[in-house]
């Protein structure tokens, strides 16, 4: 049945994650201003906290589904800080989502405990992955893949233990030739060559990778299917399935921060004597309260689209369209909300004394990575129009 209430177990988990997040938030400014430093594996305070996994065992079939609670946990963590965590997450990178979506059971068991980044973008290709130039060539003599190419904008690329890499078996095959490979750090021929300087999410490192005759075992092809599917047979869709979880997840990152911005703005405005009640009509509200109310509704709408995409995944139903909806909605909502919170705060909003200006910078990536808002709109439009890539470019 349709239900939007959280169970006691759900509440217990989320309250706990928020308590951790508040501790992590104390370090947010430091790692924002000291971009060269990495946040530690675990904060000093972490040893006194049990960790969220200790609470997960109590969950039952009556609690919110695994993906749904995962999205809410992600939002709660990001409500603390995008990058600083009580303890460095194992198995929570974007590459882990790819592994979960398209790895074999054996592969999931083997690498699930590693922090995995995801490398798709190249200097010459971003939103159009059919232009991937990094190659994977099978050396039958040694049963190894030989990788060559360059990847940029690899999120958590410096700290990760390994990467899920997109490379093509055959450039002439276009998107159909693209496969995902798992490459562990320290593999000869795999260099982390550069760390980007960014507008926001500075404590989360963004790397450039170079692969020069990098050899990995044949079994490192995710999913294990080596043949190139015929054009139009939907083989690429298997690769894209990864995004059905990472897109709502990415939106959840941003929405955790925009919620923090809303909470901060509420606290400040109420402290300054602005009443933020819920008025049925605009006449009963001050201009500030009306704007605040709209942005809260926008936050709620975006959060629900994320939960919807996750819910479908929990049900084992297709959620390609809904994943893109959540990403498009989340990406635009967090921009509007954080920009709007600074507007509501006035000059105080831009002071680095508070984290609001940081959230404003941090969330801006939400509408860009994991497929820009425009790409999401293209996917949504193609889906509802029944068009392929050639019909709607």
């Amino acid at each position, binding site marked *: 049945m349709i239900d*939007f209430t959280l169970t006691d177990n759900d509440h217990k988990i989320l309250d706990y994650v928020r308590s951790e997040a508040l501790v992590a938030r104390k370090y947010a400014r430091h790692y924002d201003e000291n971009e060269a430093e990495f946040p530690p594996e675990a904060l000093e305070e972490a040893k006194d906290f049990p960790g969220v996994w200790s609470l997960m065992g109590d969950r039952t079939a009556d609690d*919110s589904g695994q993906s749904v609670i995962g999205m809410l946990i992600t939002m709660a963590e990001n409500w603390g800080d995008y990058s600083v965590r009580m303890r460095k997450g194992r198995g929570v990178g974007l590459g882990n989502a790819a592994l979960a979506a398209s790895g074999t059971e054996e592969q999931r068991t083997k690498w699930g405990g590693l922090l995995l980044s995801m490398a798709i973008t190249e200097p010459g290709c971003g939103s159009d992955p059919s232009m991937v130039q990094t190659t994977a060539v099978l050396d039958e003599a040694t049963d190894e893949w030989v990788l060559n190419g360059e990847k940029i904008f690899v999120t958590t690329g410096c700290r990760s233990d390994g990467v899920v890499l997109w490379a093509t078996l055959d450039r002439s095959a276009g998107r159909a030739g693209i496969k995902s490979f798992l490459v562990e750090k320290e593999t000869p021929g795999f260099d982390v060559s550069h760390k980007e300087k960014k507008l926001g999410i500075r404590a989360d490192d963004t790397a450039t990778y170079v692969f020069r005759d990098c050899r990995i075992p044949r079994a490192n092809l995710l999913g294990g299917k080596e043949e190139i599917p015929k054009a139009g047979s939907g083989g690429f869709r298997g690769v894209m399935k990864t995004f059905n979880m990472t897109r709502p997840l990415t939106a959840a990152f941003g929405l955790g921060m925009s919620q923090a911005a809303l909470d901060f703005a509420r606290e400040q405005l109420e402290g300054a004597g602005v009443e933020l009640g819920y008025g049925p*009509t605009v006449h009963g509200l001050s201009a500030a309260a009306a704007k605040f109310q709209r942005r*809260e509704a926008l936050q709620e709408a975006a959060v629900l689209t994320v939960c919807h995409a996750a819910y479908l995944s929990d049900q084992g139903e297709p959620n390609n369209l809904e994943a893109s909806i959540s990403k498009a909605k989340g990406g635009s909502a967090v921009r509007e909300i954080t920009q709007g919170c600074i507007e509501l705060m006035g000059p105080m909003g831009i002071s680095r004394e508070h984290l609001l200006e940081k959230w404003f910078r941090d969330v801006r990536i939400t509408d860009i990575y994991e497929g820009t808002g425009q790409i999401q709109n293209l996917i949504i439009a193609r889906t*509802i*129009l029944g068009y392929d890539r050639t019909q709607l470019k």
Partner: protein
Amino acid sequence: MISFGPTEEQQVVRDAMREFAEQVFRPAAREADETSSLPDGLLDQVWELGLTNTQLPEAFGGGGEVRSPITNTLILEELAFGDPALAIATTHPSAFAFAVNDYGTDEQKEAYLPRFCGDKFAAASLALIEPSPTFDPLTLQTTAEPKDGGFVLSGRKRFVVLGDRAEHFLVLARNAQSAEGGFGAIDAFIVPRDASGLGVSELEKNLGMKGLPTVGLELEQVEVPDESRLGGKAGIDARRLLASSRTANAALLTGLSRAVREYAVPYAKDRHAFGEAIAQKQAIAFMLSNMQIETHSMRWLTWKAAALLEALEEPTRASIFAQDYAAEQGMKIADDGLQVLGGHGFIREHPVEMWYRAARTLSVLEGIAAV
């Protein structure tokens, strides 16, 4: 537990309503709008579906099924997909009946609920809106002054649905006796059509949903007995009543927005310019994708408000979000839908101009439907 899954029964009802709305409402909508009248026999035809009486107690002749704001929300979206004016006209008695069911005393339930469990459409109205640009349910200008053994009602109401034929009006008024303001001061009174001092206007002429009959009420020192105060001394839960109205509005706007989208999509694929379908141009395609994104957003906010109502949790905040968001996005979607059709959007041969007027109309009204 967060769940977006309707029950099997709800899914059956939803599918049936969608089919009904497409087959019965959609073909009748234009003429109802042009002639400002309801199609003959439509009210009785919909009444047979049992949308009002199914959820009333068996003791009063109802179906005895659980009162479900969620089910009613699903129904309203589907009916409004067919046509919002006809959806409101045919279901409006629920706004009266559900309020009596939810807040009425045993005597009031016994006196009024059986009327909604017969074979024929039972017209009754909720009277909330007042003729002022600063209308706000929390500061009603219609007052109820206590007077020995009863109340005296004074004020004016507008946009009272089915007021041309209602036997009873549920008039919302500010209780002058109430010490508290806001929600706590809102009372509802059952006023018979023939009450002394009650004036019912001619049919109002409105911008949109012209097939929906609405009237104004003049209450000049209308004396009603204590027994007509809904809920007796306890009164009503005005938070829930208003939240139900807002959630219903949001559901109607979601259905209307879906109607616009589902009309604009095939049109844009069919209409060619510069050698290709206009839907193949991003300027058009992105308006359509936005309609998809926002109808989802509207629906989930609406469902959340309905779910809180159903769980008997505080529904005010969620219902305001749902209504406010749906009002804004519903208007934008109708606006964009008209733009996609270009000049044809402006022509009354297509339903989009009708939906454009309906979106603006619906998004400013309250108390016209309930879940």
